[in-house]
């Protein structure tokens, strides 16, 4: 067996440079294009790149290992030895796993070392960014086993031969779980478990296909399709249905969508605005805007305004809404230092890393901001609960994005003297001011902050800005002096505190919040959120007019939503024909039970039933076409009812073709490989003798089948054909 291991190592090791070079080249390209500051190097992009390369390389290894043995006499030479095929399969899998891991992990290891050397002092990178890529490398080995199934399944290339790779794709998708590890460890664990289970099933399926033999042309007497192979094909067909449905839906010629927002009159009266957009071939085009008052019952307060007077309110910002992950530094914002150099602020695990950029866009870490101190990298810091956010106006875009940085280039390549400025940050427990010159952090406001917003100062006479902070139960408005970025900034006084009448706090986290504020006696807060199901949204409004707080709730009018859904239903009819009836039924039932059915009852039900019946009939036809037993036909019929139209293809791709001949006894079709006729039970007749047979009596073969033996006189002539 050792010799066989050596043989497999020699066979596979020659492919190692292909994977190695491909991954190194793509990583090199990725890094080179992000040099010198590496702000855009993210674990997600490395993950995608590695996923692509590892899937291709694993597939290549599987095909290179097994495909040549489906040609000529190679299979016979492989089989005819005192070594079981199972052992050969195991040896090959282990050897190729080793080759694959070397090819894929060596470049990732080198990248991790590179990150460790340059980060975080010169760039916002760290070695653990490659961990998701390592995970995807492990799961992408499923493509090796998918490729074995592709090589060994005796199917047509334009038929279902490539389908096992879809099962591999589904398994490798489990690696995506790693990217959400920080937020949802439970979901990640389930994803991993499913991926590992799928991998084991795929290994068993490819093994059984390999052992069965790659070149068993039909008809096959004992198809011997393993349960694992069936699972693999079911998974593959479901993935195919998913892809085709998603692609069809994305290519649906046109469908309309409606977006809702709240706008305000000069007197603070909220109006609902629906923007209708038609999407054609993936591109949206706005059609119209419909505006109407939130509640007709507020006419006692305000008269109906001129529609043209409506203005948008302000939105709250959510510090925790960063797409933070466990692996990457997160871009928080940009500002400038006291001497005008661009500063990029990155967040990582509750700390802020401030990078100063020189004229050549090279970065240097100048400070790490913790909750209590401003220090250097490597100094122990107390992190914030969440990554803080720069307090900034929405229109204050970072200078690096506007190209401003290039204007700092100094003549003769002289380096700009590095300076440091200050900025204000919003954390979950208050507002902080960071003075980089003095390496000092001070708390401006000690208050819980769930959301905040700068108020529009353009309406007021003062140059000062107002800051609204939502703490979960009330909104406090503060007057601020100075600039939040690059200057002395102070929160001077609390203007007012608005205590809301309802449990807005809960809804605030899930909805869009708009805030219109003029003075303590005249403000409006509108929250639009989804109630109970994702298709039915509500708008809730709290208003204070002359210190009297009123509260309104309204649903988005059904007429608008219904028209929209009807349009979409018509457009997605064709792709939804492929969706398994059981899934359609589950969605319909769930939305019905939640009180917001996305369907019109009997029509939807009729569609599901019709699809299920049609699929069941097709499954029966396919199963009978493949000569399955009555029990198997019934099982696949049930499968057709549940899984839908894909079952037809599934049956045809799993089971080999069967062939029939006329039974000489009953003249009905009978299976070639069966000893007895399924209709009349007759056995095959012995073939007619040619009359020239010559058998020595000691050789017993002829008598058994009634062929001519010496002594018999069978008149025979040459068959002239």
């Amino acid at each position, binding site marked *: *067996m*050792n*010799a*066989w291991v050596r*043989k497999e190592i*020699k*066979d596979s090791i020659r492919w190692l440079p292909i994977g190695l070079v491909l991954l190194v080249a793509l990583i090199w390209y990725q890094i080179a294009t992000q040099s010198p500051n590496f702000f855009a190097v993210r674990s997600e992009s490395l993950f995608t790149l590695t996923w692509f390369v590892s899937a291709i390389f694993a597939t290549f290894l599987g095909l290179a290992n097994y495909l040549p043995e489906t040609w*000529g*006499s*190679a299979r*016979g*030479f492989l*089989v*005819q*030895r*005192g*070594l*079981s095929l199972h052992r050969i399969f195991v040896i090959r899998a282990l050897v190729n796993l080793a080759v694959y891991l070397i090819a894929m992990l060596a470049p990732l290891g080198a990248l991790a070392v590179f990150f460790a050397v340059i980060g975080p002092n010169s760039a916002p990178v760290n070695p653990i960014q490659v961990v998701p890529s390592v995970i995807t490398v492990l799961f992408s080995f499923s493509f090796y086993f998918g490729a074995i199934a592709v090589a060994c399944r005796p199917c047509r290339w334009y038929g279902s031969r490539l389908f096992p790779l879809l099962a591999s794709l589904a398994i490798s998708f489990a690696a995506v779980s790693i990217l959400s590890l920080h937020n949802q460890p439970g979901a990640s664990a389930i994803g991993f478990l499913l991926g590992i289970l799928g991998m084991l099933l795929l290994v068993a399926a490819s093994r059984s296909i390999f052992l069965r*033999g790659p*070149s*068993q*042309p*039909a*008809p*096959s*007497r*004992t198809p011997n399709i393993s349960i694992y192979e069936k699972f693999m094909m079911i998974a593959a067909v479901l993935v195919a249905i998913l892809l085709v449905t998603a692609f069809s839906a994305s290519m649906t010629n046109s469908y309309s969508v409606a977006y809702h927002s709240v706008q305000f009159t000069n007197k603070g009266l909220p109006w609902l605005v629906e923007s209708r957009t038609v999407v054609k071939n993936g591109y949206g085009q706005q059609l119209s805007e419909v505006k109407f008052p939130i509640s007709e019952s507020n006419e006692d307060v305000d008269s109906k305004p001129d529609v043209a007077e409506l203005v948008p309110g302000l939105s709250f910002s959510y510090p925790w809404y960063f797409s933070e992950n466990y692996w990457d530094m997160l871009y928080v914002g940009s500002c400038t230092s006291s001497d005008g150099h661009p500063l990029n602020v990155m967040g990582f695990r509750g700390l802020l890393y401030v990078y100063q950029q020189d004229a050549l866009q090279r970065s240097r870490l100048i400070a790490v901001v913790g909750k209590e101190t401003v220090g250097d990298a490597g100094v122990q810091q107390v992190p914030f609960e969440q990554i803080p956010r720069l307090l900034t106006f929405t229109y204050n875009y970072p200078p690096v994005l506007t190209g401003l940085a290039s204007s700092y280039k100094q003549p003769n390549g002289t380096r700009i003297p590095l300076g440091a400025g200050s900025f204000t940050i919003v954390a979950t427990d208050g507002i902080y001011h960071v003075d980089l010159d003095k390496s000092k952090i001070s708390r401006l406001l000690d208050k819980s902050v769930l959301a905040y917003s700068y108020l529009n100062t353009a309406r007021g006479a003062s140059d000062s800005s107002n800051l609204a902070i939502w703490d979960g139960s009330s909104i406090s408005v503060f007057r601020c002096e100075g600039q939040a970025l690059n200057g002395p900034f102070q929160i001077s006084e609390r203007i007012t505190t608005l205590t809301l009448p309802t449990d807005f706090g809960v809804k605030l986290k899930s909805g869009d919040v708009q805030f219109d504020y003029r003075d303590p006696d005249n403000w409006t807060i509108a929250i639009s959120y989804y109630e109970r199901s994702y298709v039915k949204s509500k708008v809730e409004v709290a208003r204070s007019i002359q210190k009297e707080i009123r509260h309104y709730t309204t649903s988005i009018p059904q007429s608008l939503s219904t028209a929209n859904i009807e349009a979409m239903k018509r457009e997605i009819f064709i792709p939804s024909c492929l969706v398994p009836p059981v899934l359609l039924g589950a969605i319909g039932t769930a939305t019905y039970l939640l009180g917001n059915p996305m369907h019109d009852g009997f029509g939807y039900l009729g569609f599901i039933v019709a699809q299920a019946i049609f699929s069941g009939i097709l499954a029966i036809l396919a199963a009978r076409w493949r000569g399955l037993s009555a029990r198997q036909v019934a099982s696949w019929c049930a499968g057709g009812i549940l899984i839908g139209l894909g079952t037809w293809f599934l049956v045809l791709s799993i089971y080999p073709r069967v*062939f029939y*001949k006329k039974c000489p006894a009953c003249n009905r079709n009978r299976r*070639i*490989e069966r*000893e007895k006729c399924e209709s009349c039970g007759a056995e*095959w007749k*012995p*073939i007619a003798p*040619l*009359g*020239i*047979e*010559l*058998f*020595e009596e*000691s*050789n*017993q*073969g*002829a008598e*058994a*089948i009634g*062929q001519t033996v*010496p002594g018999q*006189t*069978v*008149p*025979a*002539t*040459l*068959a*002239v*054909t």
Partner: protein
Amino acid sequence: MSKLAIEAKNLTRYFGTKPVVQQVNFTIPVGSVVGLLGLNGAGKSTIIKMLMGMLEPTRGSCSLLGVESTSLGPNERSRIGYTIEGHFLYSGMTVRAAETLQADCFPKWDSLLFQTTLQRFGISPHERIRNLSRGQRAGISIALTLSSQPELLILDDPSLGLDPVSRRALNETILSFMEPGDRTVLLSSHMLDDIERVTDRVMIMTEGRIVVDSSLPHFVSRLSVWTCECSEPLDRVQIARLVSRRQVGRNASFVIVDADEMTQQELHRLGGNTVRQEESTFDEGVMAYMSRNRSAASLMSI
């Protein structure tokens, strides 16, 4: 009753709806050396593949050394030697590496026999297989097969494409392998003199069925060759147990199995006093069976 090395019962194989092997029955006792003959497409390789478990029978069954062919495991396979048509080998290996690989998989490996066989074919163990000639590859293939000291040897057209020297070396190797007398060989070939020299029993296949299964002397003794001058077109001639006929101008010849009185009368009706019986040879008999349909078809065009 002697033990059976090979047994085929009602062995049938279809490709699609086309029958390639039809209801074939035969047994080969331990110690026999059997030649399997037939035209291309007659079904010889298909039978061998079914025997070796590479191809599943459509109907019927076959077994080697008492084990169903579809259930042959590593233990049984290590007792069987099989050279594949075309002598497939891992061409990237050296001869030495190929030997090491093979020796690792067969417990009764005879390294001395391997070296001897290599010398017979003039092959250096350090050469890479892809650099060898077809004859040398055949030699390695045979050496790899025989050195595992199989109880049963199945050779599928081993001399295909070999020059006379390589063929002679091949035959010598096979003959020396059979010397102990307890080894069973099934040799499929187109080389009639090889078969005549090596085997003691012959099976001839045509149209997917075995039409001859006999020892060589018995086979020759039951055939007779008749010649006559005949002006009548032979496609209208009806002679019982006529294997083949040929006609060149007025000279016609017939190969007949178990010719009897009625057959001779019919021949005399055709050729009168010109009818003569000649001694048949092994080659002539085999050629008559193998070219049976071809000669009939050619007559149509005369």
